[in-house]
């Protein structure tokens, strides 16, 4: 260090302090930047005579929402329910479509990914065509396609297509399925299921230990299915089958507007939800298929050869050697696909599915006009969903990760 340099230059040129200097500067500019934005926002809001506050959440909402899981769960009623309930309804509807979307996209994606590596030409070609179309057509276009394809193919409101006669039917107003009506004593069956889960878990631990000790393989899959289905079924029958089904009701006669499926009987799945679910699953599955294929291809061929050299049967080799190694490669990008799917569900606003962006950051925002608070609340929901998904997937990733010994 040269003594004639000034103090400030020392902070920049001296390797001992340089990194600290720049970090402090960066921190200061970030603080300044945030302060600037917040200050401007407050000034601008004041100039428009608008305050900041969450008082609007207790006001009652004056608009109708399509019957969905959210409205049913919170017993939504116009003029009685508050904007806070509208918020919850939005969250539930976003969650449900993301949940089922992830479920379907995973199954479809894994199937297609494996199909793409198949020896069978038809399977391989189908999968390739699917993936290229699915990945390369924008999601919004697919959303419109499915929505209007669904609408145009379904019969009108006064007609029906019975999927299972008198039990399950569909027309343009939606899919009608029976509603389970638990009676007294049904909770015992649920407890039995929980106990069965516990037993299965302990059995599988025991089976694994025994296999490590003695090399004997226990048919865990079938045993698990037996316990999980058998125990609740026995309890269910013993308690006198305390569950009835409420079936959809279809009126053929009466005033024209009253014909068709009757509101309140059975469960209604609106076509908007079906379209969103189809589009999200089909779109994301294309990406997942590629991730799965990449994961499997990335496992060195030597692993397959080594397995067969050891005399491991082909399907065991796939399940016990190839897939576990492929999973390590698949899981991190799979997580981003799950996060994408959840966030993409906000496009559903375009086709009238009442999810969070549609009912809360849309209709409710327009009635109340609290943009900053409401967008902030909406962002918080997506952030929470994403973080929870990421934490779960990281935990899962840590489990399947290569354990170095």
């Amino acid at each position, binding site marked *: 260090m040269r003594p004639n340099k000034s103090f400030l230059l020392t902070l920049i040129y001296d390797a001992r302090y340089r990194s600290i200097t720049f970090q402090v500067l960066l921190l200061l500019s*970030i603080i300044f930047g945030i302060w600037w934005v917040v200050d401007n926002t407050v000034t601008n809001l004041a100039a428009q005579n608008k305050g900041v506050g969450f008082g609007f959440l207790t006001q009652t909402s004056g*608009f109708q929402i399509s019957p969905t899981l959210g409205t049913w769960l919170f017993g939504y009623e116009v003029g009685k329910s508050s904007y806070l309930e509208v918020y919850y309804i939005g969250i539930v509807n976003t969650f449900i479509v993301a949940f089922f979307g992830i479920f379907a996209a995973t199954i479809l994606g894994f199937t297609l990914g494996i199909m793409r590596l198949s020896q069978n030409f038809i399977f391989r070609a189908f999968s390739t065509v699917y993936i290229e179309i699915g990945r390369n057509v924008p999601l919004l276009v697919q959303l419109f396609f499915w929505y209007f394809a669904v609408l145009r193919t379904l019969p009108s409101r006064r007609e029906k297509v019975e999927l299972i006669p008198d039990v399950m039917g569909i027309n*343009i107003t939606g899919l009608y399925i029976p509603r389970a009506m638990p009676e007294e004593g049904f909770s015992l069956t649920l407890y039995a299921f929980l106990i069965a889960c516990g037993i299965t878990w302990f059995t599988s631990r025991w089976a694994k230990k025994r296999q490590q000790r003695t090399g004997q393989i226990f048919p865990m899959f079938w045993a698990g299915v037996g316990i999980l289905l058998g125990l609740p079924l026995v309890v269910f029958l013993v308690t006198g089958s305390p569950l009835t089904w409420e079936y959809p009701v279809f009126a053929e006669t009466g005033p024209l507007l*009253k014909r068709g499926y009757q*509101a309140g009987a059975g469960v209604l799945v*609106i076509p908007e939800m079906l379209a969103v679910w189809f589009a999200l699953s089909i779109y994301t599955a294309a990406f997942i298929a590629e991730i799965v294929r990449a994961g499997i291809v990335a496992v060195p061929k030597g692993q397959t050869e080594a397995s067969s050299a050891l005399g491991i049967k082909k399907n065991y080799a796939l399940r016990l050697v190839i897939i576990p190694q492929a999973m390590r490669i698949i899981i991190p990008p799979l997580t981003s696909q799950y996060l994408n799917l959840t966030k993409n569900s906000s496009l559903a606003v*375009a086709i009238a599915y009442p999810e969070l962006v549609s009912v809360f950051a*849309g209709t409710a925002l327009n009635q109340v006009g609290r943009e900053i608070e409401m967008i902030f609340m909406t962002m918080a929901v997506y952030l929470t969903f994403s973080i929870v998904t990421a934490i779960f997937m990281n935990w899962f990733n840590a489990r399947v990760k290569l354990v170095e010994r």
Partner: protein
Amino acid sequence: MKKFTTALVGIAGIALASNAMADGHGGSTLKQVQDKGFIQCGVSQGLPGFSNADDSGNWAGLDVDLCRAVAAAVFGDASKVKYSPLSAKQRFTALSSGEVDILSRNTTWTMTRDTQLGLNFAGVNYYDGQGMMVPKALGATSATQLDGANICTNTGTTTELNITDYFRQNGMSFNLVAFEKADEVVAAYDAGRCDVYTTDRSGLAAQRGKLTNPDAHVVLPEIISKEPLGPVVRQGDDQWFNIVRWSLNAMINAEEMGISSANVGDMMSSDNPAVKRLLGTEGKFGEELGISNDWAMNIISQVGNYGESYEKHVGENTPLKLARGVNALWSNGGILYAAPIR
């Protein structure tokens, strides 16, 4: 080091941008508009007759004419307008954030919007009411027969609230399917998703042409709400508010006085003091607004009076075929009544 510089530049950029935004709210809108040389006008994403772009991207309609009138008043040139198509959901945020200078987008004047959104309604350029359209095959002749109907509409509008109120009042059940854009509402209604399509009656008239078979549908007689549609400006800039309000008043007054784009040249030499005040040959009404005295003359010669604009875009000879009805002048049995220029 490189990362750090990038970050710093980024932050500086954000700071500058937010500073610019803050400036956007201070100062007079008129000054800003004059500096940039055009008016940014928020319009609909395509509502024939009110604000609709043709194949070559030229906007036309009753709402568009209002923005053109303001441009004529401010610049003496009605073409100095740029248009921002906005969804119902975006419109107020776009106005209050300074993205547009005027919102002229078939927007209903309600108390909540006037008092809670930091906005001001500068007048009414179309008195509308919400109506309902149903397929003729439904056989309904009145809205009171619609118990249990599925109803398609737009999200983020007063129509959602009105239809909910109407059905609650009449003790009828219904199911609302609310889309973000009008095109999807029409498509879903056309596909049979809903028994009823509800929006302002002017909107029903405009959108009807997009249906596969427009004649197979009928608009029910009930008008279930008052929908005074008008231009909106930001609260807190009275000068700009006055310019927009009086541009509209000038168009209505011109019709009342019989001044049109065809005869405005002759009228310049009129002896009628009211005409002279309107056309700026007497008094300094324009200067009081901060613009030139021939402001109203420019509006009339370039855009026309209210009646001309109405007939051209939504009147009997257009596909919308909307009769003047309540939108006729007060002297002709309507409720259109502009304050005098004096």
